[in-house]
């Protein structure tokens, strides 16, 4: 037997003799292998075998009088008896010391696992299990593995063995026990085992508590390590949702001396993990009323913090506690010493108060202007470790070439262009404007810098720490270079956009035919490098359109202000260029067309509207009409739009083609409303009368100049949209390879689930594919875990500012005022509208809730939201600018829109009656939710919306 000194803690009262001695003697009676936790005869009494980490701790907590659901433990001795009596032990002993990797006689863990799952429990063993189950009162139970090495201080083995939730009945319980036993031989348990001997395993059978609220509590802040902070994360439903990272959670900090709540961050919670039917745990929606309110009251938080402190006192070390709340009562499910506490978070993922990735002189570090506004919606928002490391790849290998594509001769140092702050990507505005001074239009840095001004920063005091670009010869050379480059760009821009569009279809078709699962590691490496090469080209090709649209728009604003004065206010917004070919708008039309096709086929319509989202694709393929529909409508739609998603630089987000749920949601929405999208699009054609007149009053030369600028702006916007799809598709290609690696890692047991791909470092993925190193060496478990913690930490911090100078201390930043009903932002789409607000946090889960005419309130939007714009009465976002896709599309759909309100999603509630003034840039709450009769309408078919947790 292995020695697990320090791993498996002995029970509170140590047994009379060490387990090892007993295991060597005659087999114990089976009854002695079942221990009632916290009961009599409890672990204090005589029993055989070991309890394993989890059961030991639960017993200790129960003995200390802490609220743990009742249960019993099947010790390792029972498992060993099972192995002995079924003959599996003999098979294992056949080659006990052989290396599993050496092949030959060593039993393959897979075979052992299958053997266990297929071998019924001998009656004497089953009897004692069911006996104990009977004594428990035969309730619904959770059956969990309690491994010997689990919960060791050195390595967190959390989640490497199985748990079966919500089972009841003799058969099911026995089956669940076998599943847990077999998991000792699971891939993920073997991948990280230090030695080859699997050891043994105990199992806990515990009453299942269907908690209404669950979460974790840390007796010490696991990331920032500030003292006296009990950190609580809470989500709706079962705690499994939180562990998998699939639901959003509230965040609280309680002072462990006064038990006062010192920090509280409530997030909009759309989904939860809950029993869908007896024995079926899955994802479902949170009731509308519970979405925007804290999961726990202050009184409950005090109670929970007090429990946490008691657990800490019991063990004398900091603890990480899993808890749940049901009917006002707290239950503890697990307590572990806090194992991972990243010392000083560094690198792109977080850490420090400066976004710089390399050390900089004080003057530069403290004087740099940073912004994440207008750096493309693809970067906006908090990113996962994978997303950030991919952004870092972009920075190292692509960004300076993008600058070169703008005609910048000296493209500078890659490390200075971008920075990272609390999981967000920032553009170094100081450095960029310093370099962009080489281009004539942005010779005066203010032209570039001014775009990033917001009331958060005062530019009066700002001077660029990089200074002006050196004059003399370098300046002259740069100007000549820019002129030549720009002349070339003007002649090439149309043909390049066509080439990019062709190349996109080619790469898309190619990728569609490849079965990555059948490619060798070397081939995958080739694929990734190819995709990255293409990713480079598409970004570099796209950038000029992006910046030119930006530039012409700026020029237009300036000319309007200068020549038209007050009449020119917002003329640029009212300039209705014919952008009906804008791809983003087109995508809404195409969703509409697909919805029409679905409506024309009863079988298809039934599947899409009545079946659970995740089964629709499969069912359509099984149905003859469905297949026709898929081939004739879905496939072409996906070819044109499928690589869209939200925040596309974030590789973890599935694209429409990876998960068409959102498309089905939009089809449901469009079909249900039965309105014509043409009605909306019709409104957007032609000039707004008054602005046309204002333009007409100008002298001819000025009018011509303005019209030219308008048409150039329109052209660049159009080309930008077309080429943006190529860029987006290139990211999808990279994503495909990364997720194939992820699937292989899950298969090898290196990752617990595909969700963990989010915590990988992109460079590790490249390194793994490029070489022949063992996956477990490349993907270090401790690093994955600490990346996850840092991400969770960043997630619960307030959004960092869009723009700031120098360094930022999020903990010192002022909290947003919670009162008040008026918000100011940027006027992005003209017009004034009154309507009920709907906060949309999760596009996929909420798309079908959105009622036509409601006002869409979101933290930010991007191209993937376009289909919702088509039916929205107005659009309000926390962040964004005049040139965000959301603004462009809002103007196109003639939807009044205010962006960059900063706090709209926190200050406005779903159901509030609000007025959006898209000319003045203000949003006001007229009547809070509940006073009217608006809100509850949407929670119609929650049961059918549920989707299974894998």
């Amino acid at each position, binding site marked *: 037997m292995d020695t697990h000194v320090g791993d498996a803690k002995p029970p509170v009262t140590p047994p009379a003799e060490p387990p090892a001695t007993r295991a060597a003697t005659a087999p114990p009676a089976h009854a002695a292998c079942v221990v009632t936790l916290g009961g009599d005869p409890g672990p204090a009494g005589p029993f055989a075998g070991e309890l394993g980490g989890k059961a030991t701790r639960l017993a200790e907590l129960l003995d200390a009088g802490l609220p743990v659901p009742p249960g019993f433990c099947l010790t390792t001795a029972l498992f060993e008896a099972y192995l002995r009596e079924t003959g599996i032990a003999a098979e294992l002993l056949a080659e006990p010391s052989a290396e599993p990797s050496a092949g030959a006689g060593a039993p393959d863990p897979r075979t052992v696992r299958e053997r266990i799952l297929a071998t019924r429990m001998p009656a004497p063993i089953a009897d004692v299990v069911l006996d104990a189950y009977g004594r428990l009162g035969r309730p619904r139970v959770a059956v969990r593995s309690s491994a010997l090495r689990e919960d060791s201080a050195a390595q967190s083995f959390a989640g490497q063995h199985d748990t079966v939730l919500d089972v009841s009945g003799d058969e099911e319980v026995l089956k669940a026990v076998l599943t847990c036993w077999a998991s000792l031989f699971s891939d993920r348990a073997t991948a990280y085992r230090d030695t080859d001997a699997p050891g043994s395993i105990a199992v806990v059978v515990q009453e299942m508590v269907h908690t209404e609220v669950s979460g974790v509590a840390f007796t010490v802040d696991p990331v920032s390590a500030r003292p006296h902070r009990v950190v609580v994360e809470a989500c709706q439903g079962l705690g499994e949702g939180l562990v998998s990272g699939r639901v959003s959670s509230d965040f609280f900090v309680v002072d462990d001396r006064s038990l006062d709540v010192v920090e509280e961050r409530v997030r909009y919670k759309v989904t939860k993990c809950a029993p869908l039917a007896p024995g079926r745990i899955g994802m479902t929606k949170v009731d509308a009323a519970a979405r925007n309110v804290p999961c726990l009251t202050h009184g409950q938080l005090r109670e929970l913090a007090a429990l946490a402190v008691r657990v800490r006192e019991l063990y004398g070390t900091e603890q990480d506690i899993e808890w749940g709340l049901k009917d006002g009562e707290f239950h503890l499910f697990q307590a572990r010493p806090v194992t991972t506490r990243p010392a000083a978070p560094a690198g792109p993922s977080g850490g420090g108060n400066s976004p710089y990735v390399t050390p900089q002189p004080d003057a530069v570090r403290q004087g740099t202007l940073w912004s994440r506004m207008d750096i493309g919606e693809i970067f906006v928002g908090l990113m996962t470790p994978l997303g950030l490391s991919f952004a870092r790849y972009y920075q190292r290998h692509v960004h300076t070439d993008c600058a070169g594509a703008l005609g910048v001769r000296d493209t500078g140092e890659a490390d200075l262009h971008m920075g990272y702050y609390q999981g967000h990507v920032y553009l170094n505005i100081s450095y960029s404007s310093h370099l962009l001074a080489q281009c004539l239009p942005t010779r005066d840095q203010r032209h570039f810098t001014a775009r990033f001004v917001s009331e958060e920063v005062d530019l009066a005091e700002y001077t660029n720490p990089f200074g002006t670009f050196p004059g003399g010869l370098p300046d002259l050379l740069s100007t000549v270079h820019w002129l030549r480059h720009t002349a070339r760009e003007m002649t090439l821009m149309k043909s390049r956009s066509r080439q990019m569009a062709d*190349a996109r279809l*080619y790469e898309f*078709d*190619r990728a*569609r*035919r*490849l*079965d*990555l699962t*059948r*490619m060798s590691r*070397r*081939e995958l490496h*080739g*694929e990734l*490098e*190819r995709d990255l*090469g*293409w990713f480079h*080209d598409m970004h570099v090709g796209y950038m000029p359109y992006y910046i030119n649209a930006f530039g012409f728009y700026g020029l237009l604003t300036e000319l309007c202000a200068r020549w038209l004065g007050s009449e020119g206010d917002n003329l640029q917004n009212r300039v209705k260029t014919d952008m009906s070919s804008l791809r983003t708008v087109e995508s809404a039309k195409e969703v509409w067309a697909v919805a029409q096709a679905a409506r024309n086929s009863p079988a298809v319509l039934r599947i899409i509207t009545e079946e659970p989202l995740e089964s629709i694709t499969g069912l359509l393929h099984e149905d003859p009409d469905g297949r026709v529909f898929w*081939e*004739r*409508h879905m*496939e*072409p739609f996906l*070819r044109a739009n499928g690589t869209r998603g939200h925040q596309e630089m974030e590789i973890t987000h599935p694209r429409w083609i990876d998960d068409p749920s959102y498309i089905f949601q939009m089809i449901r929405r469009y079909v249900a409303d039965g309105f014509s999208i043409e009605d909306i699009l019709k409104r957007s054609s032609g000039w707004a009368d008054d602005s046309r007149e204002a333009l007409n009053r100008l002298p001819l030369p000025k009018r011509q100049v303005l019209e030219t600028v308008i048409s150039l702006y329109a052209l660049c916007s159009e080309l930008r949209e077309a080429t943006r799809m190529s860029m987006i598709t290139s990211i999808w290609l990279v994503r495909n390879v990364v997720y194939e690696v992820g699937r292989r890692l899950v298969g090898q047991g290196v990752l617990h689930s595909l969700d963990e791909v989010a915590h990988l470092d992109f460079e590790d993925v490249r390194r793994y594919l490029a070489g022949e190193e063992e996956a477990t060496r490349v993907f270090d478990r401790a690093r994955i875990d600490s990346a996850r913690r840092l991400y969770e930490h960043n997630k619960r911090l307030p959004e960092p500012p869009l723009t700031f100078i120098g360094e930022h201390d999020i903990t010192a930043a002022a909290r947003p005022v919670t009162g008040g009903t008026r918000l100011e932002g940027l006027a992005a789409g003209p017009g004034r509208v009154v309507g009920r607000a709907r906060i949309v946090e999760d596009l996929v889960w909420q798309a079908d809730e959105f009622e036509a005419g409601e006002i869409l309130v979101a933290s930010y939007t991007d191209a993937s939201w376009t289909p919702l714009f088509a039916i929205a009465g107005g659009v309000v976002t926390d962040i964004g600018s005049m040139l965000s896709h959301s603004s462009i599309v809002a103007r196109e759909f003639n939807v009044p829109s205010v962006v960059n309100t900063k706090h709209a999603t926190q200050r406005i509630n779903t159901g509030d009656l609000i007025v959006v003034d898209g000319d003045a840039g203000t949003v006001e709450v007229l009547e809070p939710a509940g006073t009217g009769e608006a809100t509850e309408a949407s929670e119609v078919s929650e049961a059918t919306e549920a989707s299974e947790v894998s």
Partner: protein
Amino acid sequence: MDILSLAKSVAGRVEAPLTDLRTVTKVLSNPRMPVLLALSKGFVEPVYRAAFLASAAGSGVLAALAVRPCDLDSLAERLGVPAEDRPLLKQWLDMGVKLGDLGRREGCYRLRSLPAKALAQGGNDALAAALEEVLRFHVPALLNGPRMLREGRRFSLDDQDGLVIARSTRVVQPLVEEAISRTLDRTSPVRLLEVGCGSGAYVRYAAGLNPRLSALAIDLQQDVADRAAANMAEWGLTDRVETRQADLRTLDVQPQFDLLTLHNNIYYFPRDERVAALRRAHDLLSPGGKLLLTTSCQGGNIGLEALNLWFGYADFGGPLPHADELTDQLEEAGFRDVEAIRLIPGEQFHAFTGTAKRAVAYA
């Protein structure tokens, strides 16, 4: 002494004093004599020389002498000839002296004739190999044709020395390279599959034109593939080019290729199997991917006809294609926009290109 040698010795002695005028007169008055002389000067000697030069080039003798004149011992050592066989080597070398291709001064052999000097240059290795190919493959086909037919014998792949073929096909290297440079995208990342990669020279050429190209290079013959892999390592291309022994017809890889090339090897496929092979090539391309096939076609010079004859007598492969026939076969295999380009007017060397079918796009 056979009659040919007699005639030769007579011819060699014309300047010698006419000691036995009677004999000479008698011999010369033989009506067959002019034919014999013509045979000797016009046919036999060139054959001997060609054989000697091919062997001298292939064995490395020419290369050694190109550096500096060598004596027998150093040559023997270089060629790995055991001491007891040195007299035989000397005999062989002296034959070269007699044929005029080598010279000998102060016990050292040196290059003498123009062809010997030319073939000794590294850049002309392909020509040397072509000469070797002629002697080792074309000549046996001519020599043994009727006998093979009578005995029901055929050439097999083993009768071909893959390395020699790989070297010799490089005679058309400039043409193939021209075809590659016309077809290959220079800037995008390209995934290339080269079928029948030979020495790997064309993959190297393509990799040089497009620094982002990566390739899988396959050859049917293990020794050829091994050599190509060694070449890739020498050229520093191992990271970008994977080389292995494989048959196009059974190669199991995903349709990942943007370009598939078949240089000078379509005739290794029997005529009636070409469509199937090309279809397989088509299916390994990504939709819209390109095929480049180079080959000599029928109707060319006498050397090509001899090659054609050899393949006619082989139990694998088939005749050189007719340009029209191959165009049709490419179309039948699913290729679109098939084109056949003659790279040099009047020559039967063609480059065929075609595009794999695009995905079906509705609406």
